């Protein structure tokens, strides 16, 4: 097993045995700022090597994927899970958006197995983060009496920390190119996997803390949080094939589709759809889908997508 995953398990175990181990908040925030910037920079540096024109169709395909996923998740939540409208929309938004750390774990997975991928994939992380959230909010608001302040919301979503750092890194990497970023490479690229490992320790602590929420929300979320990602991964893999990504790229896009947001989406939904119960979505995305993806999902999606690609 990848050490990154072992760090996650260490966090899970520490929490389950009720250890007093905690990462200070500032450290957690610092690590996540680092990861977001590093992923953005990495993508930007690669983008600098490509002509942008040919990417546009891919961009369109990915955006479409981001809009479709929450629309698929919503009816399942509403009619199978019998959630009320706000809760169903909120969970749909979380699964429509993506998890940057899951993406990073998948990148590490590919690296270790020597599977190459389009290096500008971080661009798609940015593209996939927002649409799912917007669609989720729309689902909640259609037919609701309360008016939504779209201006404030657009601001909240587009200028939220994670988008700003990812896009910022992307643009800086793109403008600077690999050579100018040479002195930054040591910190942002060489130490990446080790910092990711530390962050996974925190993720383990937090994810395990969500398990008790699950007991209250019952089996449905457990099923939803493991089955839906598999379906989404397959859809992501198909879209990847459609837009002409390599095997590695398709595994990453599949993993992105399968991943659920637990940073940007919770913050946005808390403001936009306050009547939704935040612990439902977090229990699912942090407590079920994140561990599932890290422990089981990524290798599984590798197989599924490999099958699609005939590899």
């Amino acid at each position, binding site marked *: 097993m990848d050490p990154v995953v072992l760090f996650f398990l260490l966090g899970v175990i520490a929490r389950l045995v009720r250890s007093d181990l905690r990462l200070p908040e500032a450290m957690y925030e610092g690590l996540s700022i680092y990861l977001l910037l590093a992923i953005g920079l990495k993508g930007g540096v690669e983008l600098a090597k490509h002509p942008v024109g040919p990417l546009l169709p891919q961009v369109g395909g990915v955006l479409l994927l981001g809009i479709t996923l929450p629309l698929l998740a919503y009816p399942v939540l509403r009619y199978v899970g019998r959630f009320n409208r706000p809760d169903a929309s909120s969970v749909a938004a979380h699964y429509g958006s993506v998890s940057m750390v899951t993406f990073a774990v998948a990148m590490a997975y590919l690296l270790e197995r020597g599977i190459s991928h389009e290096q500008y994939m971080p661009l798609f992380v940015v593209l996939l983060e927002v649409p799912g959230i917007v669609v989720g909010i729309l689902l909640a608001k259609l037919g609701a009496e309360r008016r939504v302040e779209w201006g404030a919301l657009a601001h909240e979503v587009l200028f939220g920390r994670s988008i700003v750092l990812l896009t910022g890194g992307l643009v800086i990497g793109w403008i600077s190119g690999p050579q100018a970023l040479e002195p930054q490479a040591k910190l942002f690229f060489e130490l990446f996997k080790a910092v990711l490992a530390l962050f996974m320790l925190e993720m383990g602590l937090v994810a395990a803390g969500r398990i008790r929420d699950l007991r209250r929300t019952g089996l449905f979320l457990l099923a939803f949080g493991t089955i839906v990602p598999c379906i989404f991964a397959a859809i992501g893999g198909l879209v990847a094939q459609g837009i002409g990504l390599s095997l590695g790229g398709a595994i990453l896009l599949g993993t992105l589709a399968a991943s659920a947001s637990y940073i940007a989406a919770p913050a946005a939904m808390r403001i936009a759809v306050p*009547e939704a119960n935040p612990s439902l979505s977090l229990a699912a995305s942090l407590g079920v889908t994140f561990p599932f993806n890290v422990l089981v999902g990524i290798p599984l999606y590798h197989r599924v997508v490999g099958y699609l690609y005939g590899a």
Partner: protein
Amino acid sequence: MQTHARKLVVIITESALESMLVKDILTLGAHGYTICDVRGGGRHGAREAAWEADRNIRVEVICDDPTASAIAEHVRSKYALNYATTVFVADIGVLRPEKF
């Protein structure tokens, strides 16, 4: 020491509300506020500040009686239904009444 009677309104709630709450408080007539990061527990379960969604703030506002009522009412009607919220009011004395 001569002090002037004022109210202290304390609001403990989710940190996601900070910027909105500050705007509301100043709009409702208070001249200042003080905020502190806290953790806690109540009807909405433990909020241990271990994750962004789990952080609380404690907002303290010194103001006159009507403003205190307005703030407390406003928080109750706008936030208390959907957000983990606790509000209490205390009688305090201040030295410079023109400030609050």
